[in-house]
């Protein structure tokens, strides 16, 4: 949590630590990629039955990509102060941890 330790009062905090915000163009490009990935995701619905496992793995990967693209870009986590990431990832990590263990104890995964 080193970021929070450097906290001597800067004159006008807002101006100085305002994160770098990309242009509209950049966001539109990102949205196009997201749309593309969504299209790919949807296409798995028509993939042949034999490819179920592949589809599942692919879907999880695509989901993760979309998830982090939105979090990092649209929600500015990539550009913003690391403290925000820390707070959010704590929740995300705990959620994945406890719920996966719970599902595992119900023999959900195997």
């Amino acid at each position: 949590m080193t970021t929070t330790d450097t906290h001597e009062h800067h004159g006008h905090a807002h101006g100085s630590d305002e994160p770098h915000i990309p242009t509209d163009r950049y966001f539109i490009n990102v949205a196009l990629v997201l749309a593309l990935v969504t299209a790919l995701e949807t296409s798995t619905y028509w993939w042949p039955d034999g490819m179920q496992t592949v589809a599942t793995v692919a879907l999880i990967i695509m989901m993760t990509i979309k998830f982090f693209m939105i979090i990092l870009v649209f929600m500015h986590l990539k550009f913003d102060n690391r403290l925000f990431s820390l707070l959010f990832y704590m929740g995300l990590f705990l959620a994945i941890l406890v719920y996966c263990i719970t599902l595992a104890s119900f023999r959900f995964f195997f």
Partner: protein
Amino acid sequence: MALTSPAPSRSLGAFRRPVEATGWKSWVFTVDHKRIGIMYGAVALFFFLVGGTEALLIRLQLAAPDNTVLGAGLYNEMFTMHATTMVFLFVMPLAAAFANYLLPLQIGARDVAFPRLNALSFWIFLFGGIFINTSWFLGGAADGGWFMYSPNSSGLFSPSHGVDFWVLGLQIVGIASLLSSINLIVTVLNMRAPGMKLMRMPVFTWMVLVVQFLLLFALPVITVALFLLSFQRNFGASFFDVDKGADPLLWQHLFWIFGHPEVYIIILPSFGIISEVLPTFSRKPLFGYKFVVFSGATIGFVGWGVWAHHMFASGMGPVSVAAFSVATMLIAIPTGVKICNWTLTMWGGKLWFTSAMLFAIGMIVLFTIGGLSGVTHAVATADTQQTDTYHIVAHFHYVIVGGAVMGLFAGFYYWWPKIFGKALNERLGKWNFWLMFIGINFTFGPMHVLGMQGQPRRMVVWPDKLTGEGYFDLAFWNEVATWGAFTIATGVSVFLWNVWYTHRKAEVAPLDPWDARTLEWMTASPPKAHNFDAIPNVHALDELFHRKYEEVDTDKGVRLKKTSTAEEVLAAEEARGDAHIHLPSPSYWPIVLAFGLPIIAYGIIFNLIMAFVGAAIVLLGAFGWVLEPSVAEPGDYESPSDDHHMKELDPVG
């Protein structure tokens, strides 16, 4: 948000903003963290008496075999509500009281980050607590035990409205805790005085911070569980309906994913309190500050991976059991670190056995007993003998009453002069301590024996034919436990008497009665509305101590000498104070918004129309809230820059 924003002063036209600085309105509409803290404390103490009275009734029923004080149904309601009241309406809010009052002071802030939100949390908690307890008069309280295992909690098996009250009430109280956790985390991260680095924060602040994170992440889990249960009870869903294929273990997991972090939510504030009290009365810094802070955070984290130790007999399978067993043992390590550090803080010190110090030491002793029995549960196969017996009841009352409650009482004695300007009577304090300390051992000590001799918990009656003789005379030990409980009650009564006595009789306490070390003692007692005339600049851990003491060379070597008093430190601070300080203004909206919630809940139970009325009130509150600027217009309210209104203020009132 900013002050300069264009916002009309009377946002809803009809209402004037509350401006009173004295009288009941100054309490009901306050957004001052100190007043909110005091109100939290008063309400929590009230619920302690409620929960304690329930405990005494439980003990009366169990005093003799085949006793008939309470019927089976009433008994089940009694222990369910005893636990619910004690955990959610006493210990948690009392910790919130200390946190609210002290946290801004300890980090050198004027208030919490979101003062109105703070008021909202308090009112939601109060209304939620009252709501749960009205179930006693509206068809019976919840009777499923405090972990409310499904399917026994479903409408089929518990058809009275008790469980509905419990579910909705906890949901309401949970909102309060969630909001205040966000509020306090932001406060600690963002409102610190210049120089107050994280590793200069008092340990109490640290532990409260860890607790808020636990709340932040644990509450949504029980929220899910409660929603599932209320959808089942009120809207016909079947999440725990085995006939439809549900697995009752789902509830257990959800409950304990919340429930285990919850027990650390209960204990960590007390860890923080005694980490303040011990150094002060040992005249030494806390031994291994970093280790204590770090182990507190570790406990908070590891606490997320052990929940299923409450389910060793549930049949979840040997792999899960073994894994959780080992994880649970791990948690004894960081806790052990703390015990050692506290002991070593005393080591080499100059110990001053005030009531606060006695409570702190008593806390270590009793908590260690409870913690060690906790470790004996962690060995899963052994736990299959212990679980759901009085051995467990012994464990958790030692850690909760012996640990958390004793710690909170240490806090009372330590901070009372700060909060009310008068110190609690020390003689009464010692009576208070010894009665509670002895009472706790006599109440919960025998329960270790009772459990291992086979007395299960949650039993309205215990048959005579199952008591042995001599050492194994369970009837005898049960009777001892009952006498012990009344000894605790006597101790608590002494405390209440002490509060009254102090309020009426005691003289104003000196500014720094304990020769304390942290920032909250660097301001007036009770502090002014704006806490500090000038926000202090912090240079070290234990800032105040460093301002009071200096190392001087004497003929015997380097010695610590008191070079200035707290009064002098304070005078110097006040001299550089700001002339004009704006504080956030009181507001109607928190209490309005909070009031809507129990109405919604009553509506869900009795009449949906009422629920809509409640929702309308909540919306109204939210609407007024958003449009209201945090500081009143000059015409509405002049923030006091001096403390004239604090003098008229009745601190206990």
